[in-house]
């Protein structure tokens, strides 16, 4: 038994020397994993940030401008204006915009908004369409003074802001939690939740996730 431990030690020493003797090998054992960690952590993200959205507004009305300003209000979309559809389509082809919001000249009378996403990046398309239609619906309800009959009070455990990478830079606590990365939990008719009773956090996760008030603080 003792003998095998001694032999194992000798073998380990030999292997380590082999590995660490060559300066290039030394480099490749240490540096690439670190780089990989950094690059994976920052590049592997599905968060959609500052998506470029093309706007073709044939209506040019007060309502259409109000609708568009509600799209930019969340800070997740940057608008680029185009005179007609073919210019916008060109920009989409070149990949400089990820979606087009098209308002026909009949816009407020005929309340239809066309939303075109670039499906060649299917995941971003899903997210952008989801967020944009949510924003437009919210705007429409607010503008018409409607209140949603059924609201979805959603809560994401273990990762309240649905980030692919935890942001360490923000100050912890409420600040962190009330800032939503993708517009989803933004002002749902600016209305405090009455659901404190049945939030139900999981054991072992920080308190702020169990506190519905901080997650859905009206903005």
């Amino acid at each position, binding site marked *: 038994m003792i003998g095998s431990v001694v032999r194992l030690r000798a073998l380990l020493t030999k292997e380590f020397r082999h590995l660490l003797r060559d300066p290039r090998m030394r480099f490749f054992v240490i540096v690439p994993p670190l780089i990989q960690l950094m690059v994976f952590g920052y590049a592997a993200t599905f968060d959609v940030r500052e998506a470029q959205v093309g706007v073709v507004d044939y209506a040019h009305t007060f309502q259409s401008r109000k609708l568009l300003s509600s799209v930019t209000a969340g800070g997740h979309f940057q608008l680029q204006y185009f005179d007609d559809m073919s210019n916008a389509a060109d920009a989409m082809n070149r990949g400089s915009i990820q979606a087009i919001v098209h308002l026909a000249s009949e816009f407020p009378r005929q309340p239809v908004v066309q939303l075109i996403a670039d499906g*060649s990046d299917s995941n971003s398309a899903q997210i952008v369409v989801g967020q944009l239609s949510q924003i437009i619906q919210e705007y429409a309800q607010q503008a018409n003074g409607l209140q949603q009959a059924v609201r979805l009070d959603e809560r994401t455990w273990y990762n309240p802001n649905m980030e692919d990478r935890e942001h360490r830079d923000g100050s912890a606590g409420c600040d962190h939690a009330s800032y939503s990365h993708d517009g989803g939990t933004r002002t749902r008719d600016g209305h405090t939740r009455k659901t404190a009773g049945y939030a139900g956090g999981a054991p072992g996760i920080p308190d702020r996730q169990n506190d519905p008030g901080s997650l859905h603080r009206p903005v």
Partner: protein
Amino acid sequence: MKLQHVRAMIRKEWWHLMRDSRSLALILLMPLMLLFLFGYAVRLDISEAPLGVLQEALDAQSDDIIARFDASHAFHVVARFHDRQSLRASLQSGQIRAGLVVPYDYARQLQHRNATLQLLLDGVDANTARLLRNYATALVNDYTLSLSGNSAPIRVKDRSWFNEGRESRLAIVPGVIAVVMAVIGALITSLTIAREIEYGNLVMLRTTPLTRGEFLLGKLLPYILIGMADLLLAVGAAVYIFDVPLRGSLVSLTLVSFLFVLVVMLQGSLISMIAGNQMLASQISLVSTFLPAFLLSGFIFAIQNMPIALQYLTYIVPARYYVALSKLIFLKGISPLLVWTEVAALLVMALLLARVAFMRASRLGLLP
């Protein structure tokens, strides 16, 4: 540069290749293997995510909303719970991706048009959570509208160009080709010159009237031929097996691919000369091609969503340009000249790498 010398070098390299059946099998089968692996394994679509339901009152309204979640293609009710503890435990263990809580007074709330449903999502996979949230919100919106009977105040008609079903397969497979070609192309060429050095063949070559330019050209041409064969194989598999539409022209795809193969193979031969032995060369080529091509090319992770510093870093990754061009030709079906900057970038890279490889080859001890 004499054509005769280049031909002799090509013939020698070709024999090396043909004689080594294991390498040849690797070169021809690995691209397809990788393509199948990535093509089938990398899926970002959500369908029938397991949903757990806690229904606190057994009334028609609660049944209705749960049935709607179950009927949607995004969710599938796999478990029903009677208390929060078991719902929580199930979400923690990953048995369900989301939990829906329909409160006991849901029907009464609904009469006052002020009902709340709770949706609990597992945020460990942030992207899935986000997509499920979007689906659920849209579903509840539709449900609300169907209840009130009047039409939506604004109707949003959404569609996705180039990929109407927003299937991740269509968006990913053209990119997979780029990743596979970057890895294979650099790997096989990174071994060639290192092998000559390792086996001492270089000493023999030094006695011949071969110049360094002829040496490099003769080394690269057989591999470029094989690389193009690999590429057409991969394109064929993408079109016929993965059903990705090839909307642009095959000719422009082939030309652009040739440029890309040239870039990665020049990169591989440069690595080969710097590393000097096959082990290290294969390591360097894997690290320097696979990781950037996988992460920084925009093949899965969109470049515009990365931090700015990394966005700049992607400019030196050749796969970045090829992924964009490949998606463009496959899905958008437009001419690559519309985005000529990407083509120009590949061209500049090829020239630059050829220049550096030529300079570095002076250390091999061949005739200048």
